[in-house]
């Protein structure tokens, strides 16, 4: 089965929601243990953001790869590293969650290698909180068609898992979106298990098209929906500044709109790990690329990507911020443009009050302004499909005309042409002087002077989700009374308690969740492994 379901009830031992790293390994693990498994994915392909990623997973505690490279590691050391009190990435972590991660990380790695056939590069450098080399990078997937963005190593970590899962008989239902969970109640009305979920078919733009279908999950539902970055109301619980203009990483390939969190909260789940989302550390935000909507700094889109019809432009990457100035929606500079990609003071300036009582939160669009000489120096091609001229890239003969051109959904008021002219006149004087008294840009170097002139979207972009569903060491979702919700599990960016970027925790808790779902499910029903025949 690939992309259709009939309207009769479907029934499986384990139902996994989301086909990214967390979902794929959960599905493979549960099926490997003998459960019948359905994996539901809203995109027309699996992989999630994992397939777009750099493929470097924090998996250690004594893996075979570490041993082969002579690295000594242990679960204790892994745990100690990731609960370090002297780091923002360690101090707020839920130690029950990190303990479980530390004790299952190596087993997850071996399972991915042996059952999932993932092939690895030599270990990467120790980074973030790791005190020894742990980060395992996959090789990119050998078939270009499976890479989504050519050359991304992440393809080599998710495609082998997908292949193994399919070969073992996991059913994958594409272009279907989970919309709610059902929790049983007993005769007295007390809350019981999560036993069903509702899904709906969606079109190529994730819009529901069909009837709602009910799917039974006898042993458990595992949520791996990737986080909340794209749900404006949800993300503003953590940061009121993050209004609608802020786009998020991978939004056109693997939307993460807090579906897992919202559905689980509706059946009593607690959210958790707020400090991990608000501590201004690591990948909560990114400075961004230019000229395209979904503009994470680390990734230029490819015209060969199968979802390019949604992206519309590859984007432009500045190699040298001397080639441009960054202005707010008002046409005024606000910060030293050369700031790093994760500079939270830069983000604060970009998101500060615009001065308009009509828009109190969010800072509005940030525009990169540059000229024809900058285009030559950078070697940019400023025509589609490199840039999205439908609201994210503008050009004009003069600076004032350029300001007048900037009209799009998030530019809620016109940019005053005189402001932009004054900004450029003043900046060009800074270049003559060699100093920037306004924002201390080092050695201002190039004037913005030769027509035509350009304005490219360069608004910060939302990235990782760290706050999310509360889980325990068995990846069970916990309710607001601190009790596990029977039959409901979560992993990856929709789960929380662990401020660790990316793949490692998604894989580890996907592995843990599937094992817990199958063992508790089998214990409850007294059944052994089932075949997938009783699915569809």
């Amino acid at each position, binding site marked *: 089965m690939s992309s259709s379901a009939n309207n009769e009830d479907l029934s499986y031992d384990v139902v996994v929601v989301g086909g990214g790293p967390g979902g794929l390994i959960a599905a493979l693990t549960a099926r490997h243990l003998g459960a019948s498994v359905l994996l539901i994915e809203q995109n027309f392909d699996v992989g999630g953001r994992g397939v777009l990623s750099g493929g470097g997973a924090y998996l250690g505690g004594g893996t075979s790869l570490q041993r082969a490279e002579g690295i000594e590691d242990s679960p204790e050391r892994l745990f100690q590293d990731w609960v370090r009190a002297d780091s923002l990435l360690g101090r707020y972590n839920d130690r029950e969650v990190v303990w479980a991660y530390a004790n299952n990380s190596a087993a997850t790695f071996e399972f991915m290698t042996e059952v999932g056939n993932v092939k690895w590069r030599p270990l990467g450098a120790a*980074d973030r909180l790791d005190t020894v080399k742990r980060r395992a990078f996959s090789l990119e997937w050998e078939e270009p068609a499976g890479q989504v963005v050519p050359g991304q190593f992440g393809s080599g970590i998710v495609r082998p898992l997908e292949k193994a899962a399919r070969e073992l008989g996991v059913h994958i239902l594409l272009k279907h979106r989970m919309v709610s969970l059902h929790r049983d109640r007993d005769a007295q009305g007390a809350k019981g298990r999560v036993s069903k979920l509702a899904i709906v078919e969606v079109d190529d733009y994730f819009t529901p098209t069909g009837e709602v279908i009910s799917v039974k999950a006898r042993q458990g539902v595992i949520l791996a929906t990737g986080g909340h970055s794209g749900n404006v109301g949800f993300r503003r619980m953590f940061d009121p500044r993050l209004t609608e203009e802020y786009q998020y990483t991978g939004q056109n390939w693997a939307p993460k709109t807090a579906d897992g969190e919202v559905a689980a909260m509706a059946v009593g789940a607690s959210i958790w790990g707020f400090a991990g989302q608000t501590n201004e550390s690591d990948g909560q935000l990114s400075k961004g690329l230019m000229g395209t909507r979904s503009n994470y700094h680390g990734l230029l889109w490819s015209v060969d990507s199968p979802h390019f019809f949604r992206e519309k432009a590859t984007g432009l990457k500045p190699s040298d911020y001397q080639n441009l100035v960054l202005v707010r929606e008002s046409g005024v500079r606000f910060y030293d443009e050369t700031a790093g990609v*994760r500079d939270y003071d830069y983000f604060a300036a970009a998101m500060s009050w615009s001065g308009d009582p009509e828009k109190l939160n969010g800072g509005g669009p940030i525009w990169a302004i540059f000229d024809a000489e900058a285009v030559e120096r950078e070697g940019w091609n400023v025509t589609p499909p490199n840039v999205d001229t439908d609201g994210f890239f503008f050009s004009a003969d003069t600076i004032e005309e350029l300001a007048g051109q900037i009209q799009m959904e998030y530019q809620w008021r016109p940019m005053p042409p005189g402001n932009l002219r004054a900004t450029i006149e003043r900046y060009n004087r800074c270049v003559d002087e060699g100093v920037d008294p306004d924002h201390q840009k080092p050695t201002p170097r190039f004037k913005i002077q030769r027509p035509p002139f350009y304005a490219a979207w360069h608004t910060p972009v939302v990235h990782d989700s760290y706050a999310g569903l509360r889980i325990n060491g068995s990846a069970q979702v916990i309710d607001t009374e601190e009790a596990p919700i029977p039959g409901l599990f979560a992993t990856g960016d929709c789960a929380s308690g662990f401020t660790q970027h990316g793949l490692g925790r998604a894989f580890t808790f996907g592995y843990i969740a599937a094992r817990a779902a199958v063992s508790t499910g089998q214990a409850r029903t007294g059944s052994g492994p089932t075949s997938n025949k009783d699915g569809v």
Partner: protein
Amino acid sequence: MAAGQPEITLAVWGADGPAVVGSTLSVHVGARSRSGGSLAGQTVIVRGAAGHEVGSGKLGGNIWPGTLALWWTSVEVPVPAEPGLHVWHASVGTSHFAFSVAAVPAPAHTLTVTVFNTTNAEIEPLPGTHVRAGHHAATTDESGGAVLALPPGRHTVEAWKQGYGSVKGIAVVGSDTEISLVTEVIADKDPQYVREHWR
């Protein structure tokens, strides 16, 4: 186009400093009308800070390559005898655009600045580094070198490249001189974010 935009808007380019005191600067002035219609033959006036006219010209009959409707001309502007920053205004009708240039004494010697990247304890030439001594600026080539033509005297030299630390040195220029500067990759303000070029 947005309200508040004048009927004619201007661009001025080619005012690349520094310029030697008393020399002549040739700048391009372009103008476009809101409608995109021809402005050929319209007068361009350049005025100094005190409002006095220092140069003029007439917009030609061709549009500047790459633009939709920018009529342009070149105007010769005399650079004053005093060193320092000078600001002018180009105008067409009531529209104007300010531009500037730094005036400097005639250079006497060259200063060759070579910048090295010492990240990871290596010593490698660093191309693409912007090097500056006051108003004088250049960018290093593949061998990490940049040449500045400077008046004699003591100069503070600053070097910066995207992703690297800003560094300074002092050069005493009495003849053609060479100095070298070293810099390293700097981590983002967020100490957890490891750049790909760290090993």
